[in-house]
């Protein structure tokens, strides 16, 4: 196991109280595994991604642990977390288009970033990786504004993986791209994994069909909790959790990207996470809900590598 997350709880502080955005999630990612993380907005997937690398100012680590390569990550401590960032855990952010300092030439920025982390820049390796993503080496002498959107995206992917992190978090990196570019990004990420640039990957997206092209395993989250986790093919073809089933069936056809309308088929809204009622959080929208659902369903491994948190599935 590269990554092990155990009962992780991360809350958002708001003026009205704590929003339980991530409320006891456990899972593992194996060496070389790409885990796709899917779910609708507000399900906690972005919170999870942030929790693994850098909590933002309003988030607080309430409980649970994260273990990466047998080291417990101090995720609640921004300063102590620093040595792990970039070297062990790295991030390709949602905002690749604006992730680079606009007033520094890219090469200089990379060098300054590495210097600040006391790492020597291996220029040959950097050139190799630029070649790999088909970026001309001259980009290092350019300002970000001189690059096209796709070039910026690839440049950020190269920077983020330059130190061969154990875990790479890719947070909604494809949502702003057109279909062909999405495919290219997915291929590149796979290539990074196959060449060993990254040991494991967490690919966060709301687009299940895209996840299916890349991920070995898909984890579906709902309202801050794990709903279902299984090999990609199983989640797509034989999901057990009613939420996953609805999510998949609301797609016109898996593989066709039409996921923007993913939830029109599920009536109702996710519950408030401010003071969530105990029990299954999906039960208000669930067609199969019954009395037992007033108790919280524990995640159960129904088959090998197939975890479902639902009384009906167990």
């Amino acid at each position, binding site marked *: 196991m590269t990554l092990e997350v155990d009962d992780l709880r991360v809350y958002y502080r708001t003026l009205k109280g704590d929003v339980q955005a991530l409320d006891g999630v456990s899972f593992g990612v194996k060496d070389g595994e790409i885990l796709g993380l899917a779910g609708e907005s507000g399900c906690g997937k972005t919170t999870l991604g942030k929790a693994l690398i850098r909590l933002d100012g309003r988030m607080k680590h309430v409980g649970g642990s994260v273990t990466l390569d047998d080291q417990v990550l101090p995720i609640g401590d921004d300063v102590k977390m620093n040595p*792990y960032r970039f070297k062990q855990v*790295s*991030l390709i952010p949602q905002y690749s288009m604006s*992730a680079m300092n606009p007033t520094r030439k890219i090469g200089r920025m990379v060098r300054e970033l590495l210097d*600040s982390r006391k790492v020597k820049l291996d220029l040959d390796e950097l050139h190799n990786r630029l070649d790999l993503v088909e970026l001309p080496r001259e980009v290092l002498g350019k300002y970000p504004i001189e690059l096209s959107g796709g070039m910026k995206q690839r440049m950020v992917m190269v920077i983020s993986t330059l130190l061969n992190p154990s875990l790479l978090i890719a947070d909604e990196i494809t949502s702003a791209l057109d279909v062909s570019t999405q495919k290219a990004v997915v291929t590149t990420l796979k290539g990074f994994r196959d060449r060993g640039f990254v040991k494991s990957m967490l690919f966060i997206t709301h687009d299940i069909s895209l996840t299916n092209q890349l991920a070995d395993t898909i984890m579906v989250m709902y309202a801050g909790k794990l709903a279902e986790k299984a090999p990609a093919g199983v989640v797509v073809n034989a999901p057990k959790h009613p939420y996953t089933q609805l999510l998949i069936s609301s797609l016109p056809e898996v593989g066709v990207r039409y996921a923007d309308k993913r939830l029109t088929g599920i009536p109702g809204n996710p519950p408030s996470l401010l003071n969530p009622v105990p029990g299954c959080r999906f039960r208000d929208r669930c067609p199969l809900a019954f009395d037992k659902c007033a108790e919280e369903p524990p995640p159960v491994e129904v088959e090998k590598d197939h975890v479902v948190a639902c009384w009906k599935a167990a």
Partner: protein
Amino acid sequence: MRRYFGRKLLVYGLTFFMAVTVNWLVPRLMPGDPVASMLARARVAQPEAQEALRVYYNNLFGFDQPWWQQYLNSWGALFRGDFGISLWAFPTPVADLLTRAVPYSLALLIPSILISWVIGNRLGALAARRKVLDNTVLPVSYVLTATPYLWLAALMAWGFGIVWGIFPVAGGYSFSMTPSFTWPFFVDLLWHWVLPFASLFLVALGGWAIGMRNVIIYELESDYANYLSALGAPQKLIRRYAFRNAVLPQITGLALQLGVLVAGALVTEIVFSYPGLGSLILAAIQNKDFFLLQGAFLFIVLGVLIANFIIDVIYVIVDPRTRVGMAGASA
């Protein structure tokens, strides 16, 4: 590049054109014979001077000519450097009075603007996102920026000049001195310069500190700062980048604030009877010397436009994006 500067120069050209036109138009909009009424209101003692001025100005205004001719004449006079003759300091030409005063004004303005800008930016950057410092720098800055220039000048003149008697409170140099390139005169000059400079500097400082603090907070929340934080870059590097980028809007701010800063310098000069343009303008207003006033106006407009252009050039040098964008546009 050419397009950028072309646009800027067009604006500056239009501004100057408008200033000259306003200057030409305002006296003509006043009821009655402007020359006569001006001379009547002016306090010119000698009758022969009165007559000489009347002839001179009737010629200058050229009321027997059609209005467009008058207008063109005024441009002609301007290009000859002829701003007329001062009524207050008759018969000194206005241009002479102004060129004598300008060095004093610049000696106050340039250092106070530049130093307050540099230190204010440093201070604001330091205060941003640091609770204790922020809670002291920010309130002080707000008080400073809300203070009228003239009042802080008066307070400092009173405190340091009159109560404690450390610095002189009036003039550009001591009455006993004659201007010369000697060491004692220079020291005397500097001694008289300290208070007006300090009061200008302080008021301007507050504004820059507030501006920088707000911009840098914005920069620290920007995507590139978040990305660097996620990659574990130390705060030092992130702050350095943020500061570098926050300086850019502050340069634009400098251009926008020039008018206010010049105005502040004018009233500060008046408080300290400093022999710059401000004191000249006060004399012109008190003595109804409109030619002097209008000349001073054109000088100030011209100065501000030149300064704006210099700032534009600096901006292009400092912000790579403008250069890159321009290179792309011209290629």
